[in-house]
């Protein structure tokens, strides 16, 4: 269970929050001008990377406010939390600590218990 620092209430238990998936996916304006493929991309496609991910959270059992977070999906570290109207931090400001492309060691366990 991770701790999340709600920008309005402070640090709270993960169980008070809900995850809202990828952040910065703007709902297209003038959708009538989009073709099926482009509209479908907005409705059905979301990124799911291993590593640094910009995502949305809502403090469901608290202030009910939405906000953004940058999380390392392979370690669950929350690297940055910022309000909806704040600019997202650049990806370069975070170092991806994973050694192999997939983050797994070449041999052994998927839990990477043994240091390579």
């Amino acid at each position: 269970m991770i701790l999340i620092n709600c920008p309005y209430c402070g640090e709270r238990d993960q169980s008070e929050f809900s995850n809202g998936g990828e952040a910065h996916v703007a709902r297209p304006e003038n959708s009538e001008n989009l073709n099926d493929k482009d509209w479908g991309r907005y409705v059905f496609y979301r990124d799911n990377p291993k590593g640094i991910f910009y995502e949305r959270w809502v403090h469901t059992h608290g202030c009910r406010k939405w906000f953004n977070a940058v999380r390392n999906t392979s370690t669950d570290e929350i690297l940055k939390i910022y309000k909806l109207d704040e600019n997202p931090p650049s990806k370069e400001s975070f170092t991806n600590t994973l050694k192999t492309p997939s983050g797994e060691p070449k041999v052994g366990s998927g839990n990477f218990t043994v240091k390579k």
Partner: protein
Amino acid sequence: MSAADNKKSHYINAKEISFKFDGKKYLGYKGDTIASALLRNNVRLVARSFKYHRPRGLYTCGIEEPNGIVQILNEHNEPNTRATVKQIYEGIRVNSQNRWPSLNLDVGSINNLLSPMFSAGFYYKTFMGPKGFWKKIYEPVIRRTAGLGKPPKEFRSKSVHQNHNVDIVIVGGGLSGLIAARKLIDTEYDVLLLEQDSFLGGILKNSNKIKKINNIDVNKWIKETEKLLKASKNIKIFKNSLVTSYNFTNHLIALEDKCAGKEINKDKSELTLHKIRTTHTILANGHIERFISFRNNDLPGVMLASSFEKYIHRYGVVPETSPVIFTNNSTTATLLKSLIDLGHKPAAYVDARDKDKIGKKLLDYLKKSNIPFYINSEVEGCDGSKKIKTISIRKNKNKIIKVKSSMLCVSGGINPDIHLFTQSKGLVKWDDKLVTFKPDVPFQNTITLGSVSGNYNYEKTIDEIDQKLSFLKAKNIRFNLELNDSNNFNIQELWETKHEKKSNWSKSFIDLHNDVTTKDLKQAVKEGFDRIEHLKRFTTNSMGTDQGKISSINSLGIVSKILKKKISEVGTTTYRPPYAPLSFSAIAGRNTYEFYDPQRKTPIHYWHIENKAVFEDVGQWKRPWYFKKFETESMHLAVQRESAQTRKTAGILDGSTLGKIEVKGKDALEFMNLMYTNAFTKMKPMTSRYALMLGEDGMIKDDGIVCKFNDKHFIATTTSGGAPKVLADMEEYLQTEWPHLQVFVNSITEQFSTFNISGPKSREIVSKVFTDVDFSNENFPFMTFKVFDYKDTEVRIMRASFTGELGYEIYITPNHALELWKKIFHYGKAYDLVPYGTETMHLLRAEKGYVVIGQETDGTVTPIDLNFNWMIGKKKKDFIGKRSLTRSDTSREDRKQLVGIIPLDKSEFIEEGQHVVECERLPKPIKTPVEYLGHVSSSYHSPNLNHCIAMAMLKGGNKLMGRKLFVSSTYGNKNIPVEVVSPVFIDPENKRLVS
């Protein structure tokens, strides 16, 4: 040869306790575990093994025990309890597990003779077919013979949860934990010290390796330390508290046994689950000894050497006065000395190391004490039926000699207990000198101290603690140790010794708990399972409730040898929480029975009970399902009666559970136009409208009625289950997509009770209840609402209907609800007003062709599929899901569309969920798949039409009107012929609705 008391132990004067094991009465001392008490009584056979039903004895003295797992009969029949941990008390009744009919005579032990069948991958290979065998034969047989105890008869244990927010948690109250704690006394930190045993001390109590600390006898030092810690302002000690999980962000779960050594007090909680958030975690949880695989290394009498030592010092029982000691490392020297000091003489000392590694000091001591010893030697195996009789020693790795003894103490080395460290995502590394994995890089604020960090030298531990705690500005107190023996650790790698004998009885085990042999490992690797995670699952190695605590590193050693790889390349399997089994009742805490989930009741709830309502759960709500007129009335009869009466005169439904959301603000109109498909701009104030909410994919998510007070104020109803989600969605769009809109949304579900009265006589009834209101059709037309004063509150009445009859929805504050409900019945009596429940509600709406979200729809249905084109504000520029309604997929003509169906033979009944097809009988044999046209979504017997009516979602349904089709059924041997009709069965012209 048998057990003896440790004459120097404090146990000698302890209180005697009687207890029962497998029905037989024994005596033990207060403070004894089941295991130590049984050893005192020379009970060696305590269990039968999991697969082969081989006789098993106590192997360890702690949480790592793979064999001594028992059932506590007088504690709700609690199964899978570790005999090596559970303390006895007067009258405790304990049974062994996994034996039938008794421990001594076990029928399942025939499995041992059939053992070639039970090799690696046995479950995967054996129980493949034929079809039907699994359910009838395999499963019942496996369940009976491969049991791990019987489930508790009832769920009655009590536990509570407790939260802690602290600065430092110290896991383990042994040497390092206590020293760390003493250095933190009266510092600025809040500290929790968690100890799994009922006393502090760890290694200080488990052995006599350390004599004195700062010139004080260790037992006195522990007492003094405990006193100092208790007197401090900042340190709390929890004993009997086992840390089971070390989660992310320094979140730990510890389970405290409140009844250790005591009988359960029915009025008090038995367990406390501590949920701890900390800034720093100090792991001082020590190490676990591992075994060595040899022939019949599972015979009762084989025990880990340090466990044997623990029994002597902690419990004052010498399990056997002349055991054989077999080791490959330096830790066993103190066991040897302990035995000799007590005047006992080991039958033999077998050491796999050479004389340089053993050292001159120990060799001289062996000679002086006249103990037969064998260096450069190993135990080949042991023999006996229900306990060891002889032990075969391969002397100088060559000649076999036999020694008589009933116990064999074995040590294959010690492993830092890295379980919690790896749970916290710390990385471990292989240490060639220690021949084990030890913590390397912590992932969180984790500090490891003492043997868990791979530091087996007590004197160096003192320096380690000083150094690692210096950043905390801990107190600078120096602790000096006086040791019984120099403790420079050394070890000779040894995982398994070579077998001499070959028979079905001769097995060398790698996992005692799950009955996995070293042969199984070799076979699995041969079959291609050379990745450690695959190998584990294929063989079930280390998958028991002990998680292979004494053997998992050994299996890595054996596998690395087969694969000719380094152990660090083989890697470890994943260490997952919990560290040790914890009962469901501990996890559940107080969230049981009526506290499991909140129950939501309407203000009319107790009236419903008085009137024989049968309830249905709708989300958390308790809703009347139907009302029994008399005790024996069936549901079918009740629903038919309620439905007919409503259409004849009037019926009333408690609709208080309906979700209600108030939308207010300058931009409320624009917001509502975006959220719903409907166009609200031209809608007149004080009118209402049936409205649909879609997802961005164009699929229907929820429906309800929207009341418009004016452009800045709306109230929307939602389905009973959908209210929280609809409110959350509204909030989400307001905050994330349209923050420029000035709108507030708020749940008012529980602020208003709702009654739905409908039927031809409903107008007359409400006119009598609310005498000041003009309910005439001209003044109060369909889909309008009025708000007026009623007593000291306001009532809102909307003319709407979910039955197709003339109807009114009455909204009133809950404190007046019951009184108003009774008043309506008072005036309704003359009209035979009937209360009805959700089942009649569903039937009546189906007669009228109204859909239920979640019944006709399933997240793949658009408004067009339901012929709701009229509800789509096509002229609106945008609303949620609008663009999706013109996607190529949503505009397909062969999508499933809503139709009505009725059986051609009016006496037949169509079942919900059945398939609609074109053929009366399935062809035999089926050569090409029979085309599936759709499914029946709702079906009822209509009392008003006196035959079955059903709704179905059929591919291209709109074009199938009037067609004859067939519906599968669970009775009879052919499909039911049906006709596709309009889904509106009653009053298609809406005469009743608007009159």
